[in-house]
C-alpha cells in the first residue's frame, strides 16, 4: 500500500484544518446550549405542576427514543413544510442541543440526588433560605459528580458531528468525503479525519480533567 503524502500534506490536512472550526463550533455551541437546556428540562420535569412535568417527561422520552439522524432530518427537511426553514448548521446545533439537553437533565438530577440528605437538613437547621441553600451549599457539591459526566457529553458530541455530513454541513467528515470524490482517493482523507478526532477527543478529555481537578480541589479538598 502506498500512502499519498503529497495529497495528505497539501490537500487533506489544510482543508480538514479549515473544516475543524466548523466541527469545534458546532460542538461547543451545542454543548453550552445543552448545559442550559438540561437545567430547564430538569426544572420542568420536577415541576410540581403535573401537566408541565408530564409534558416534559414525554418530550424527553420522544427525543431519547428516536435516532439523532432522524431528528436532524426532521428539523432540516421536515420543518420547511411548516414554514420554518433553517440552515444546515443551525438544524444540526438544535438537534444536538435538544438531544444532549435531555441527557444533561438526568445528569443534573442524579448529581443533586447524590448530595446526602443531611446537607439539606443542616441548611434548614441553620435557617438558610432555599435559594441560599441551593446555590451556596448543594449546587457546588453536586459539581463533583456532574462535571465528569458532562465531560463525556463534550467528547460524545464531537464524535457525533459527522452525522451532519448528511445535511451537507462542511464539518471535517463531510470535507473528507468531498476530497475523496474529487481525487478518487478516500484512504488518506478518512484516516486523517480519524486522527483529527482522536486529537480533538484527547484535548477535550484533558480540558475536562483540568476542570474536574479544579472542582475537586475547591469543593472537597482532595
Amino acid at each position, binding site marked *: 500500500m502506498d500512502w499519498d503524502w503529497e495529497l495528505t500534506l497539501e490537500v487533506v490536512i489544510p482543508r480538514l484544518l479549515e473544516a475543524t472550526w466548523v466541527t469545534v463550533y458546532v460542538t461547543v455551541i451545542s454543548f453550552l446550549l445543552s448545559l442550559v437546556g438540561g437545567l430547564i428540562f430538569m426544572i420542568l420535569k420536577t415541576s410540581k405542576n403535573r401537566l408541565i412535568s408530564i409534558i416534559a417527561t414525554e418530550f424527553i422520552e420522544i427525543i431519547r427514543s428516536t435516532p439523532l439522524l432522524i431528528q436532524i432530518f426532521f428539523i432540516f427537511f421536515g420543518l420547511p413544510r411548516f414554514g420554518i426553514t433553517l440552515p444546515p448548521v443551525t438544524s444540526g446545533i438544535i438537534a444536538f442541543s435538544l438531544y444532549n439537553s435531555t441527557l444533561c437533565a438526568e445528569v443534573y438530577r442524579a448529581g443533586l440526588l447524590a448530595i*446526602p440528605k*443531611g*446537607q439539606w*437538613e*443542616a441548611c*434548614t*437547621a*441553620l*435557617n*438558610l*433560605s432555599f435559594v*441560599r441553600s441551593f446555590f*451556596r*451549599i448543594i449546587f*457546588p*457539591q453536586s459539581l463533583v459528580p456532574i462535571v465528569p459526566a458532562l465531560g463525556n457529553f463534550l467528547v460524545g458530541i464531537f464524535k457525533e458531528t459527522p452525522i451532519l455530513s448528511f445535511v451537507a454541513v462542511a464539518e471535517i467528515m463531510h470535507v473528507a468525503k468531498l476530497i475523496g470524490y474529487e481525487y478518487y482517493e478516500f484512504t488518506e482523507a478518512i484516516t486523517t479525519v480519524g486522527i483529527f478526532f482522536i486529537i480533538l477527543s484527547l484535548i477535550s478529555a484533558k480540558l475536562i480533567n483540568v476542570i474536574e481537578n479544579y472542582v475537586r480541589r*475547591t*469543593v*472537597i*479538598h*482532595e
Partner: protein
Amino acid sequence: MLEGQLFMSDKKIIFENVKKTYGDLIVLDDFNFLVDPNESVAIIGPSGSGKTTILRLLMTLEKMQEGLVYIDDEPINMMKVNDKLVPVSNSYIRRIRSKIGMVFQNFNLFPHMTALQNCIESPVHTKGLSKTQAIDESKKILDSVGLSDKYDNYPSQLSGGQQQRVAIARALAMRPEILLFDEPTSSLDPEMIGEVLNVIRDLIKSKKYTVLLATHQMGFAKEVSDRVCFFNDGNIIEEGKPEKIFNNPKNERLKKFLSKILEAS
C-alpha cells in the same frame, strides 16, 4: 402576649397531643411533653423509640400528622391568623427556627467550607451580621470549643471529634435559645467522645440554653441533665431526676434497658 402566642405558660417547649407516622409506622401517638426554660433534658431509650423524631419535629425537619408543638407558647407547625390556625408561612417558620440550633449525629458540616466559613454562613445570611462581625464572633466560639488553631481547616482535614465540635460551634453561632443534640457522639471513635462531651457539658452548665440531648451515653446523661426521659415505643414511660432514673428505676422495661446498657459497657 406576643404576636403568635396562643396562651402564656412558663414552658419553653410544649408538645401537645402530637401524632407522627411514617407510612404505617406510628412513631408518636398522642404525645405530650413539657420543657422548662434553660432546663436540660436527656432523652434515652432504644433505637427507633422516637427520641430522634421529637428533635426533628422541633427543628421542623419533619411534619407531624396531628397535634401542636409550641416554642415560647407559639405553635411551630401552625400559625394564628385572625384567631384561626393555618399552615405556617415561610417567614413565620424561619423566625421560629432562628431560636433553635441542632447538632447532628453525622455532623453534616459543609465539606466545601472551612470551619470558620461553616460557622459564619448562617449569622451573615440570617442574622444580618457583617462579615467581620460574624468572623469575630465565630472565632471566639471556635476558641471556646478548643479549635483556635483550626479556623481555616476543611472538615476532611479534621478528626471526627473536631468536626463535631465545629458543628456545635456552628449551631452556637446562630445565637440559639434551644440546643438539640441528636446522638452527638454515636458516630465518633471512642477516644474522641470525651472531647465532645466536655464541650456539651460546659454548654449545659452555663445554663444559657434549653437543651434536649438524645444519647446513649448514660453516665453523661446522669451527670449533666436536670431530667431524664426514658422513651419506649413513642412514649415517655418513665421520667425524673437522673439519680432516680438510674439508681431506682421503677418501670420493668427501663430496668431491662439499663441492665443491658451496663452489660455492654
